[in-house]
């Protein structure tokens, strides 16, 4: 079955083409589109399961050679090949699984949207590119997927392109990704010129022998790859695009900006783990950036009023956790958190989607024009939308790290490994501290979100409340499944202390072997310190949640119109540390000014056109004018010139 893994890519691709054709020719054929879109995904999921079963059987990776992509020379001979191994199968299952759930949800969510077929075409195309990225056997092939998902996120974020803000957000997302891609490209060149190969298998085999451990080369390659990951997975320098990406439809945010695309960065780091493990300094950078992102994103999340913005910053923060894990060498913890995060974050986003959907319908029915995504207009929805409430509550508990649920296990393992790595260098301890603080804040803002949306009384006006009702079955169905997965997700990698078999650890063992060989082993805290850490984590979760609920429900929540202007720290948080404005004023603004006035007007038009081109024209004219001065019309002048000529000729003839 694994040999047909390329079907998982082909099916969504065909789906995208079919939907695209329908979008162009018969956009109203909604039934057919809703059949093709999710249908294709479910089929891909089935194939994925088949492939997973087969991969479970073998240790090595199965390489499926489709065709030679760039047969240039013996050394640069890139094949379009897929590599199916334990790691890519995990991602494959997550992408196709969560993907199909989100496709089902979208049927309900996007039903009334005229661009229905176009939406599904883009969504299918996205899944196809994501799978190319995950299954790619070499860096360039993954790079196709890497940029392809960037393209689809550009198209999907800017889906309602009529509104300028949306298309701006799309462009911003693509450019931020592109800056990251610059890093990956240069890393590829370095890898090829040093290791002579771009295949993952080749890198794993030759990296240790060729690149000196801790050498500048390995560090530079690793950091460049990490630059790519920050672009794609929205880490500190390049995270600005993710919050704006909420301009796209909510299922898109769920699929792309929670479950799949943003995790591509983590996947790439794990996939090229050998390079990172050869550069401990780069690992520290990854860890500390992850921790910092987790901390700062969490602080911003505290003061956001738009439900999707809160979830967006929560995603950035959770991604920070994953990079913290990978940075401290715990590859499995990173992947484990990636999987569990995919479950509960997708659930949160879809839940928010059904809330927004309901609010839209209510506003539409009443003709009100308040912002359907602003939590201040909501409140007390637990009675109107019981199922959404219950499932989102499960997800909130999971993400907060309440013991027993998936979030607790994955987050705790990350913090533990960061703490363990602490004895190598204090950087990890600082990172661990930031991680713990971020965990507290995560619990707080999730509680705040639940409180403002579901508890208290509905602040959006009486008649609107009447129209609020639960989302249709096709939307709540996927929620239920995701809820179950969030509950059960922890079993994937139960830590030993709780008697678990650390199943995911063993599952990924063969793939991560080359990387782990180079790292000095991570001796996780055991005995008393371990229990202390566990206890601490539980304490944080509980304190965060109670604080969140008590603080928000305690004070009356003002409507958007009469919220007092924030001051001091609140203004800083609400304004998202003014990072966007900073980039605009310091980088984008001057660059545009420079290229317009200095380069274009100044150099191109003035220096070259005026001086060089027009200058030479004027020179020719000048010479011409000089010549004309000689024609004075005086016969005498002509004769004298003639005479001078005669004298000279005679002089030459006779003088000689």
């Amino acid at each position: 079955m694994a040999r047909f893994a390329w079907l998982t890519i082909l099916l969504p691709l065909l789906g995208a083409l079919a939907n695209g054709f329908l979008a162009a020719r018969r956009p109203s054929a909604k039934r057919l589109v809703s059949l093709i879109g999710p249908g294709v995904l479910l089929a891909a999921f089935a194939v994925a399961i088949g492939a997973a079963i087969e991969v479970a059987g073998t240790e090595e990776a199965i390489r499926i050679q489709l065709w030679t992509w760039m047969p240039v020379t013996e050394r640069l001979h890139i094949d379009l090949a897929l590599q199916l191994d334990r790691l890519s199968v995990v991602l494959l299952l997550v992408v196709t699984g969560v993907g199909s759930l989100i496709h089902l949800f979208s049927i309900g969510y996007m039903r009334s949207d005229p661009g229905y077929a176009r939406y599904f075409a883009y969504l299918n195309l996205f899944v196809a590119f994501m799978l190319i990225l995950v299954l790619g056997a070499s860096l360039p092939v993954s790079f196709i997927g890497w940029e392809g998902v960037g393209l689809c996120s550009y198209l999907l974020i800017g889906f309602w392109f009529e509104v300028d803000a949306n298309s701006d957000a799309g462009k911003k997302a693509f450019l931020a990704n592109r800056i990251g891609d610059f890093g990956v490209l240069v890393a590829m060149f370095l890898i090829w010129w040093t290791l002579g190969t771009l295949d993952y298998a080749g890198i794993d085999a030759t990296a240790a022998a060729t690149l000196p451990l801790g050498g500048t080369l390995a560090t530079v390659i690793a950091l460049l790859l990490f630059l790519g990951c920050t672009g794609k997975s929205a880490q500190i320098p390049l995270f600005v695009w993710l919050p704006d990406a909420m301009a796209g439809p909510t299922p898109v945010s769920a699929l792309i900006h929670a479950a799949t695309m943003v995790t591509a960065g983590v996947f790439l780091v794990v996939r090229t783990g050998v390079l990172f493990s050869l550069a401990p300094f780069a690992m520290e950078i990854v860890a500390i950036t992850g921790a910092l992102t987790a901390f700062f994103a969490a602080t911003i999340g505290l003061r956001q009023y738009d439900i999707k913005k809160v979830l967006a910053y929560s995603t950035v923060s959770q991604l920070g956790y994953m990079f913290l894990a990978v940075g401290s060498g715990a590859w499995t913890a990173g992947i484990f958190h990636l999987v569990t995060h995919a479950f509960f974050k997708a659930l949160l986003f879809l839940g928010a989607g059904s809330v927004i959907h309901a609010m839209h319908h209510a506003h539409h029915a009443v003709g009100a024009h308040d912002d359907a995504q602003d939590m201040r207009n909501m409140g007390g929805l637990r009675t109107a939308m019981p199922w959404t409430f219950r499932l989102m509550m499960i997800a909130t508990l999971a993400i907060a790290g309440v013991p027993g649920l998936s979030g607790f296990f994955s987050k705790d393992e990350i913090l533990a490994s960061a703490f363990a790595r602490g004895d190598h260098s204090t950087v990890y301890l600082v990172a661990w501290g930031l991680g713990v603080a971020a965990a507290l804040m995560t619990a707080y803002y999730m509680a705040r979100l639940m409180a403002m949306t579901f508890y208290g009384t509905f602040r959006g006006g009486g008649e609107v409340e009447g129209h609020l009702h639960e989302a249709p079955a096709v939307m709540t169905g996927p929620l239920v499944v995701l809820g179950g997965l969030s509950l059960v997700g922890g079993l994937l990698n139960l830590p030993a202390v709780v008697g678990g078999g650390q199943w995911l650890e063993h599952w990924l063992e063969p793939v991560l072997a080359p990387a782990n060989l180079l790292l000095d082993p991570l001796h996780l805290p055991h005995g008393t310190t371990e229990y202390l850490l566990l206890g601490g984590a539980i304490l944080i979760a509980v304190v965060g949640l109670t604080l969140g609920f008590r603080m928000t429900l305690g004070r009356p929540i003002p409507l958007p119109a009469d919220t007092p202007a924030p001051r001091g720290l609140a203004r800083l948080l609400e304004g998202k540390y003014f990072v966007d404005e900073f980039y605009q004023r310091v980088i984008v603004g001057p660059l545009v000014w420079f290229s317009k006035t200095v380069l274009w007007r100044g150099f191109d038009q003035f220096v070259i056109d005026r001086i060089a081109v027009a200058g030479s024209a004027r020179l020719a004219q000048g010479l011409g004018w000089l010549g004309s001065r000689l024609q004075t019309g005086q016969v005498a002048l002509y004769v004298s010139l003639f005479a001078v000529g005669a004298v000279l000729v005679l002089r030459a003839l006779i003088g000689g």
Partner: protein
Amino acid sequence: MQAFLASIGYEHWILHVLLALPMAALPLVLLLPVRFARWIALTVALTEMILGLGLWWAFDASNPALQFVTDVPWLEQFGIGYRVGVDGLSVMMVLLSVVMMPLVVWGSWKGIDTKQRGFYALLLALKTGMLGVFLALDMFLFYMFWELLLIPMYFTIGIWGSSNRLYAATKFVIYTFVGSLLMLVAILWMVKIVGDATGTYSFAYTHLLANSQALAPYGSWLFVAFALAFAVKVPIFPFHTWLPDAHTEAPTAGSVDLAVILLKMGTYGFLRFAIPFFPAFALSDAVGLTMATLAVVGIIYAALVAMVQPDLKRLVAYSSVSHLGFVILGIWGSTVESVQGAIMVMISHGISTGALFFIIGMLYERRHTRKIADYGGLARVAPLMATAFVITAFSSIGLPGLNGFVGEFLVLIGSFGRYPILVVCATTAVVFSAAYLLWATQRVFFNRFTNPKNEGIGDLSGREIAVLAPLIAAMIWIGLYPGPILRRTEASARQYVEMVESYLPPAEPIIANRTGGQP
């Protein structure tokens, strides 16, 4: 297929027919009534394409030497002969121009309504000139075709251009002409030097190449002359200001031809003439570094300037300058990968910029304006055109999976060994190209539908789809399966690099046992 072609003695007559057919049809177009002008041009272009495509199979990819060579004495006493031939470097360019011919004619079906006979006659002359430049193996013949191109291009821009066309046309001709005059002097001087050294004064490329070491003492001046002529044509950084004007003012057919073929003559010239004739000087460190730096400066400069262009065509023109900077970087990267990449960029740039110009032309035919500000939210009114533009824009940005990426990737990875810092700077252009093209796409297609005048523009007509479909298909095909093209250019590229390598210090491997790395 080869057997069939061999059976009809394809390789003996194909090159002559390709050259002669447009010229033969020229008088026809001029004499017959106006109605037939377009149709004759189209039939000629289609036959050229059908015949020309035979080259794809008849060309033997494994042998790097010149093929289909014919050497007929012409002006015997001066040693000038009608010498024509093709090899790995030029076969793809010939195929590209042959394939683009019918598209160009069909593309300007509606755009040109005045003086059609003159336009199509000039177009045919342009075709012969283009093919001639790539096929000529005799310096005199090469120069003749090189100049032959200027006149039709001048009239195409001058007569059918838009507002400020005369300035643009004159600037274009003078720029190119000044450059190529130097080349003429260099050619003559070269023939004399080689003639003195060997006794036979001949313009044959093979003859001059064979004893090019005689040229070594004068190598610097001769190379500078050749380089200037080609630099203007490429265009390399300081000599590029004619391109935006020429492109903005030219009619669609004119700017497509300009972008697809004429720009490649410069780079082809470097690969075929400038470097092989004077390798010692051309590949010395100083020259190599200056050319590569100029190329990279050109890439970044043009990308930045393109970002702030108010006019669509001017934006695409600057993007061409940026893309061709890659080709020059690839040529001086002097590894098989970078040279192959350079040729690939030449082809894929032709296709993607050609398609961009077609779409802009279609927009111009509808709204008669090229200002980005006049458009807005066209995706609602013309979804098909929006999709085509997005695909072409992304292929021009270099999205992997489309044709732009293959060439750029090979150039960058190939030249990284020789000029690591420059390649890193060139890679930043990846970001800028995304910036300016996306910004333009957004302002034209994906924002508020404000301007009522845009209401009337219909979506792509059947004809327009027929023009764009093959181009988009080619983009996806080359993007995913460039193998056959790379194979056809590999033999000659390898031969070129072997010749070049003997003059270059070995590109110092970054890690001592780098070559051992192959698993």
